[in-house]
């Protein structure tokens, strides 16, 4: 055997390589079956970055389906509630350039909103309850409905179905606890100061 290998170096090398590749292939194949991950981990990761408003503005019925669509190659800039921050996060996750928000799907909301039902006008039709994707509306047939504010994502899907138009989207009230300092205006330099909006107001 050894003599044959010494006498025929090329075929024996090929044989050894073939044997190696076969064994590694077998190990890899076994690992692929044994350590198979259930579901698509990428979809989960993408879904974790989406804002979970379930508003459908991206054209998918919920955030998870959009995450699936992104994993399948859809553009990452179709989510207005997430805004640029979500796009940036998705871009860094997927290793692509971050595009700006696609205006076709709407503008990023300036302030957070929650739905509010004018309770004296509500007739108890339950249409909004059926439309709410996160079960944030409480009520029953012929009974007044109300929105659980802490659970509402402000997706505005309940406004359209209301027959008496008693649902408004109101900006979330900011209390002392929610308040945070703002970043200073970094673009102001000494020569800008004379033209800055503050000084302009002061001089008028």
């Amino acid at each position, binding site marked *: 055997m050894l003599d044959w290998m010494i006498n025929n170096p090329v075929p024996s090398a090929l044989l050894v390589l073939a044997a190696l590749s076969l064994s590694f292939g077998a190990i890899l194949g076994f690992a692929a079956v044994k350590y198979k991950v259930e579901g698509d981990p990428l979809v989960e990761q993408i*879904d974790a970055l989406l804002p979970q408003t379930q508003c459908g503005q991206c054209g998918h019925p919920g955030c998870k389906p959009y995450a699936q669509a992104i994993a399948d190659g859809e553009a990452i800039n179709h989510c207005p509630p997430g805004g640029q921050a979500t796009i940036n996060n998705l871009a860094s996750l997927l290793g692509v350039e971050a595009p700006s928000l696609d205006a076709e799907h709407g503008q990023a909301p300036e302030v957070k909103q929650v739905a509010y039902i004018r309770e004296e006008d509500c007739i108890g039709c339950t249409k909004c309850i059926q439309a709410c994707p996160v079960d944030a509306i409480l009520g029953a047939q012929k009974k007044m409905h109300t929105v659980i504010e802490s*659970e509402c994502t402000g997706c505005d*899907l309940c406004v359209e179905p209301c027959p*008496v138009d008693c649902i408004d989207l109101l900006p979330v009230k900011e209390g002392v606890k929610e*308040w*945070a300092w703002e970043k200073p205006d970094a673009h102001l*330099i000494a020569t800008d100061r004379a033209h800055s909006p503050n000084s302009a107001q002061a001089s008028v």
Partner: protein
Amino acid sequence: MTSHTIWEVPGGIHPPENKAQSMAQALVECPLAPEYILPLNQHIGAPSAPLVSVGQAVKKYQLIADAEGIFSAALHAPTSGTVSAIEERLIAHPSGLSAPCIVITPDGLDHACSLEPCEQPFELDHASIVTKIRNAGLIGMGGAGFPSAVKLNPHTNTPINTLIINGTECEPYITADDMLMQTQASELLEGVRLLAHTLGNPANVLIGVEDNKPDAIAALQEAAHTANQRHNCDINVVSFPTKYPSGGEKQLIYILTGQEVDSGKIPASMGIVVQNVGTAVAAWRAVRYGEPLIERITTVVGESLQVQRNMRVRIGTPMNFVLEQNGFMASQSARLIVGGPMMGYALEQTCVPVIKTTNCLLAPSHSEMPEAPPQQACIRCGHCAEACPAGLLPQQLYWYARSDEHEKLEAHHLFDCIECGACSYVCPSSIPLVQYYRAAKGDIRKTAEDKLKSDKARERFEHRQERLAKEEAAKEAKRQARKAAAELNKAKMAAQQAVGAVSPPPAAPANTTANHDPSAPVIPAIASAEELVANAATAAKAQQDPTLDKARLSRTVESLVSSIERLKAQMAEATTEGLEASRIEKMAAKLKQTELKAQEAQAKLDAFDKTLAAGSQVDAAAQKMMASPNAAAEKTLNSLQKRLSKAQELHLDAVNENKPSADALKQGVIKLEQKIEEAKQALNEAQSTASSSNSSSSEPQKPDAAAAAIERAKQKVQAAASMTPEQKAHAAVESLQKRLAKAQERYTKAQETHDENVEAFAIGVEKLELKLKAAMEAQKEGSEQA
């Protein structure tokens, strides 16, 4: 007096002290204000819960709001009077926002309610002292406002070995603690002894004071000497070189003990408790005299005041009233700062109240504190890193804060920043570094909160989807069960007919005749139908998640099979190696058991497969049903017609008998006729769509309200994106008009049918009209501008 080793903190700065102005005058009492505003959340933690109602008379020291949970503090009336309001008022906060407050209008009499003094406070046990301190509403008076009772009740495994009393007061301008130490030195020492007693008499009791307060140090040393001699204790007054910010909790601990508190840990985990001098005095008064915290010493200073001094101010006094007492000249004031010039914040309104943590009101003139020069580019000089007392890299933090790199900020320990402002102070480009860090901290906290909220929303969304699927499956299963039952009935009827046709006396027992009768094939038919029903029922049960169950079953089978194989191999090995017979026997028994188990599981799995197949049959049937809307429409039409004939009969009866309900019945008949008309139309439509697009209608399209709304919203948004503002306004008006028309239609319908919600519909119409008007005006304005 033993000398004490001093460690030096890294970094730090030496800003102008400006402490002489306010120390020139004696401490005075602030007169009664016309109104007291008491915010419910002056401390870290949950807001207190009000105990009084509007209009109620209160006395000085009376409890007006109680602590809500452990991390909270009680609140007491600063004087006698009536509660004039419990409402949102502007408070001293950098946001300039309002928060719930209790407002008291004093009656000028200053009647106090009776207090509970304690002659022998050192004989009380730990729990009762902590309770007394808690009931007095004590919080850290140094600035952070941490509830004192919580700090005195540390839940750590380390016993407390060091009590540090913080009399550093390192920030410029502020002299409130200095004044307190000079005027109330003996009371302070009693307070220190009491706190030490509460904490189980730690070995080291240190009072730390910066060496720029010689009078305070002298007073304290004298008082400490007396106390040490009289009570045989060892309280040490330690003075150390002045440097900002030595008064930070972690910095002071390092100066006095040389120990560093780990990032994210509290000093109590190292056996150290730090309390402010003001807190120590308040604790003494609370326990010894039963006096709740209703006043504090506040430094009122700045060049826009005629008198600069320290004042004893009741909690809740409006700041503008305090300033008036000192000859405030609004025209000369640059701004009003709460706290010192380094860590304080500017106020936009002066009508906010003094709270338990307000140690200084700074009203500088324009020349004294000019506006910060504009920020310039960072020149990477590194002065900020030298000045940072926490050993951070301010420059790196600045870059990361500017570009919102939260992960890197956290990796560079942003949350260990104490926001002392030393870096901003030394920055030659006058970059407001601390503002960047504060903003970044807020951003990171907000992001974390949003993440929590979105996780919750995801969970709710998924639960909802699951619930809807389950409901749908349950409905489907019920439908199938009904269908199967109907078939069974049919089969039974057929069987009876068949039996009846062959042997006229049906009473003959079926099982005896079964072998020879022509009705024999009918019996298996019944049996099979019954089986079908049973299958459907199991399918309905399995519907909850058949695939999951199946996967689980097949997994068990697999694992059992593999363990059988393993056991066999082991047995073979054992026999070849010649192990003891008993062990081999044991193994054989185990193997048999496992094999039995495996068989059982396999049988289960097979049965399951069968039910699954039944389930899929059921599904197919259901899809077929849904695929033909014709059938559904026909069904409704049939049932409606039946109802109509019944209603007509009833009506005729009523008319014949001259019943008063005849009219109502007639209306019912008319309505039913209308409905039939509609159903017929629907049927026609269904037929036409079915014939025109057979392929599309074969897909079961669910009328999901949410999906429809999403579709509509999507279209709307798409349309809106490509429009100019003018067009947008126009579209808005149009859509509103449409909605109005719809609403009006609904309203008239409701009127005709005397719906009980007529009013609600009317209001809806009115509101829409208003909205339409507003939209039209906006459109007009828009076009005028254009």
